């Protein structure tokens, strides 16, 4: 049962905490197109929250609002119990919200390790001058960050490509590197935009396992967008369903699966 303050316990016995992120009456327009229409929902500590819906429903737009890439015309974003003023994407990232992109945005010219290390930037304090003048603390910090990065590289099983330039990697591995870079920030909230799009069955299974493991081992709160209904039902604790910019369902996988609006809009169409 969902208790507003306390959270709930999942079917597999994981304890879900209070609200981390709350979207209140968000409306986002592009000229005449209403990408998001008066949508509210929350994301709770430690849960895996899915956003689903047909193509063009506004899912990516919602993720972009959370991560500051889009600024909604109406509505409020609440993070850790306080209202967030309009913020630039880099400011949002510094607050501990990491993300991946639907179309992969990696630093193609850098190695896998360098990409993952950029995920540590928000945790680095020493600047150029202290680095030039006083090597000790800077070196210590670099080593600590390096350790975190290496741990995540091991965790996602990409040690064998650590030094490979990202541009040479196949699609599936790129998606994994992008996840690694986001994880390197040790985010309070992790946003994944279609982490399994374009993957084969085996790659999808790997990615699902990694997402579950991340949530399990680090307790990371995750919001993800996914098209594959099977995957969504397996992974997520609660699901928001969008269609034409509107929210048409919100609840546990079983609840939304049996919701008539959702069946009409999403499951009804021949997706699987």
């Amino acid at each position, binding site marked *: 049962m969902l208790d507003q303050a306390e959270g709930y316990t999942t079917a597999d016995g994981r304890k879900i905490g209070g609200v981390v992120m709350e979207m209140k009456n968000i409306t986002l327009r592009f000229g005449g197109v209403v990408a998001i229409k008066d949508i509210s929902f929350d994301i709770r500590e430690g849960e895996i929250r899915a956003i689903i819906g047909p193509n063009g429903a506004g899912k990516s737009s919602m993720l972009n609002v959370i991560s500051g890439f889009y600024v909604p015309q109406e509505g409020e974003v609440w993070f850790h119990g306080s209202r967030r003023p309009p913020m630039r994407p880099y400011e949002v990232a510094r607050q501990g919200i990491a993300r991946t992109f639907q179309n992969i945005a990696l630093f193609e010219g850098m190695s896998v390790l360098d990409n993952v290390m950029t995920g540590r*930037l928000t945790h680095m304090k020493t600047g150029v001058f202290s680095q030039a003048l006083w090597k000790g603390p800077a070196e210590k910090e670099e080593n600590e960050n390096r350790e975190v990065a290496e741990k995540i590289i091991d965790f996602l099983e990409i040690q064998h490509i650590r030094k490979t330039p990202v541009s040479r990697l196949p699609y599936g591995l790129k998606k994994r590197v992008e996840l690694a870079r986001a994880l390197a920030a040790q985010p309070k909230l992790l946003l994944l935009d279609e982490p399994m799009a374009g993957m084969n069955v085996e790659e999808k299974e790997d990615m699902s396992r990694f997402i579950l493991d991340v949530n399990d081992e680090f307790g990371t709160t995750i919001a993800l967008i996914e098209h594959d209904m099977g995957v969504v039902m397996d992974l997520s604790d609660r699901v928001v369903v969008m269609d034409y910019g509107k929210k048409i369902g919100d609840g546990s996988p079983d609840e939304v699966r049996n919701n008539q609006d959702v069946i009409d809009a999403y499951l009804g169409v021949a997706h699987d």
Partner: protein
Amino acid sequence: MPDQVVFAMEVTLNGLMAGVLYALVALGFVLIYKASGIFNYAQGVMALFAAMTLVGIMEGQVPFSHLINAMFGTDVHHFGWHLPGLAAILLTMVVMVALAWCVQQFVMRHLVGQEPIILFMATIGLAYFLEGLSDLMWGSEIKKLDVGLPQGLNEMIDNATYNIFGYGFFIDNLDIVATVIAALLVIALVAFSQYTKEGRAMRAVADDHQAALSVGISLNFIWVMVWSVAGFVALVAGIMWGTKSGVQFSLSLIALKALPVLMLGGFTSIPGAIVGGLIIGVGEKLFDFMIGPLVGGATENWFAYVLALIFLVFRPQGLFGEKIIERV
């Protein structure tokens, strides 16, 4: 050893050192181009502006004095101080950082995401603006710049080569200093971009804006930083060229020499800027030495451009530039 070969060696050495100065200017272009995709036409004028400001600060000139006097009927010219070179260089650097901030805040920030040609046009505007500003601030007369760098014939090399070849090479001390400083500058830049947090962020921004934002990098901050670094490189180039041939408008034209260097080395490569600079420096001096007499001399004016043209035909991305792949 035949005289011709010995002369050619001297010419080559001098060419190498001229090449270092070309490379220095080209480096400023590459830095900005890599990080923001902007071809900064104003790089040469920035070197001029930096050199003018440096002289002005050293001599204690009152900035905008003509303007002030014309407006208020006053007669101010100098503060009456003479600053030592190093202090003046530091102060000039502060001015260059302020300039970088203004460029980003008032111009480039409003053009994010525009076509490259529009950004390029903006830098042309910037070049003319800076040119006018330099004149207005410091006056347009030719100035001497002397921050205490050694100049004149290097006697050690002169003597050593005389003992070996029976002919003493004329190598200017200033060229040697310029070479050493340029080498240090390049090492510092590479270390900065490879090993510091800001350098890593700079490379990230150069590679992908969206991704850079998503890991918490402020594009604005990085661009101000990049323009500052380019300002610093311009200052170094301005000091070298200004010391060599006086601070005057023609200093801004060295940017035109950087263009063929970039075509040779590639717009995106720091090693390319250096190697390209050296090839053009040596190439134009040797060519003028060997072929010049046959065609009536003055080949230095066009050699670099012809070489660049040949390169454009056979290897448009330059020696070190990223390969241009058309995806279909």
